[in-house]
């Protein structure tokens, strides 16, 4: 369970996230959708306590991120594609993370197997392709067997086979009763992967809906998304909160 309440984050005068509120419930993949620069990554960083909010709250299971006892056992996150030291092997990277949250090192081998990196676990991560780097990030997120997953653009750089694999993985994780929030700027990808949708633009909430509901609004899902987000740009000053 994720709840974001009146969250605001400014960089200088520009509000990257502007009085944003939404909930993400367990049991379904929730797509976090918006054009580039709409505030998706900033919201995720605020949820993880990496950036400090100017006002409002971002809670996971009712608590701020820094209040979690064993963060990796509660939340799995993958924000950037290459958030590892290029000189360290995939295995050492994961072993270091596992140690921080008292996770058994056998679990490192399990997640490596799960994401298909076992055969290259001893290679320096800097030599990895974009797709392999994504898988390593995902392995880190899964390390603590967390109930909540936050993934920023996880299909970037994956080949079609990898995309289908991650799509099924996310659905399976959600079906196990986990909370899964996946950001994307691709409505087509979210249409297949997600059930719920949170659409933001200019740091504000444009819609909190389901894929089925959004598709029913216009001729197509894509059309509905464009109408929604173009509105946010044109009437950014006039609209507030849930306009739909």
């Amino acid at each position: 369970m994720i709840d974001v309440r009146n969250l605001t984050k400014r960089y200088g005068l520009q509000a990257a996230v502007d009085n944003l509120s939404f909930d993400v419930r367990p049991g379904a993949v929730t797509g976090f959708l918006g054009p580039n620069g709409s505030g998706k990554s900033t919201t995720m960083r605020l949820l993880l306590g990496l950036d400090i909010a100017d006002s409002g709250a971002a809670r996971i299971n009712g608590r701020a991120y820094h209040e979690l006892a064993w963060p990796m056992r509660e939340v799995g996150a993958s924000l950037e594609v290459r958030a590892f030291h290029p000189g360290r092997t995939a295995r050492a990277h994961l072993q270091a993370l596992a140690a921080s949250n008292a996770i058994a090192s056998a679990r490192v081998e399990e997640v490596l197997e799960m994401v298909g990196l076992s055969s290259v676990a001893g290679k320096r991560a800097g030599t990895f392709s974009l797709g392999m780097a994504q898988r390593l990030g995902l392995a880190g997120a899964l390390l603590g067997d967390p109930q909540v997953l936050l993934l920023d653009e996880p299909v970037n750089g994956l080949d079609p086979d990898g995309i289908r694999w991650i799509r099924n993985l996310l659905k399976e994780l959600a079906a196990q009763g986990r909370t899964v929030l996946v950001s994307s700027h691709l409505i087509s990808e979210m249409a297949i992967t997600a059930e719920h949708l949170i659409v933001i633009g200019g740091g504000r909430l444009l819609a909190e809906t389901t894929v089925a509901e959004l598709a029913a609004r216009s001729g197509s899902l894509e059309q509905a998304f464009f109408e929604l987000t173009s509105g946010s740009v044109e009437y950014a000053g006039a609209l507030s909160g849930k306009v739909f």
Partner: protein
Amino acid sequence: MATMTAMPVTTATPPRDGYRFGNVARMEWIKLRSLRSTWWTLAFAAAGAVGIGTAVGVETKGTSGDLTNNVLSGVALGLLVTGVLGALVMSSEYGSGLIRTTLTAIPNRRLLLAAKAATFCAVALVIGELASFLSFAAGSIAITARHLTGPSLTDPAVVRAVLLAGVGYLLIGLMGMGIGAIVRHSSAAVGVLVGVVYVLGQVIGGVFSAAMGYVPISLVANSMSTVKRLPHAPDPWVGLAVLSFYAAIVLGVGGWLLTRRDA
């Protein structure tokens, strides 16, 4: 492709209510030992110590000067490299984006920095003492080979000089870490470290000669590692205190910024 149907539960109930210093230190130790630069630093420090220590020993003409301090010149190369390693320990996390992974694992930034610093201190101290004793041994052997009487570890002042030369690695390394936390960019951090520890110190020392003995590198070279006190340099223990103070200030500022800035 592997599926998730049976996610194995090797992550059973954690032992305690929340992560502690020991967990973070273990993470940082795995990080340090799994990087080539750590081992390169060790190799450079050892090679420099033996090489320079021997060269100084061979060049010794008489026994009137501070032979201990002379043969400890061998610590210089490793000292610089360890300072650079300290800077990289922080700045490389920012360069790669690893800092954000680290902070999602351990959101308590103060605890993170404390464990990171403690782990690095332990490694830097081992490298420093190794370099210091190697330099001393290599230099002493070379002096003896010239049929001169070299310094002996039976003299407490000599032991103190050798030990404190090794401690210098730890303190210069911590200054590097602090600079890395402040600057957050590897090449800039290394530049600032060299600038502050070596160049700026020499400039200030050149202008105010009374301050010369108090620049970081001089505190190691002319105070902490001496047996015979030099005219404008502080006493070895005062030197240790002053350099510790510098390291604490720089690391303190780095830590203060770490807790307040967006990562």
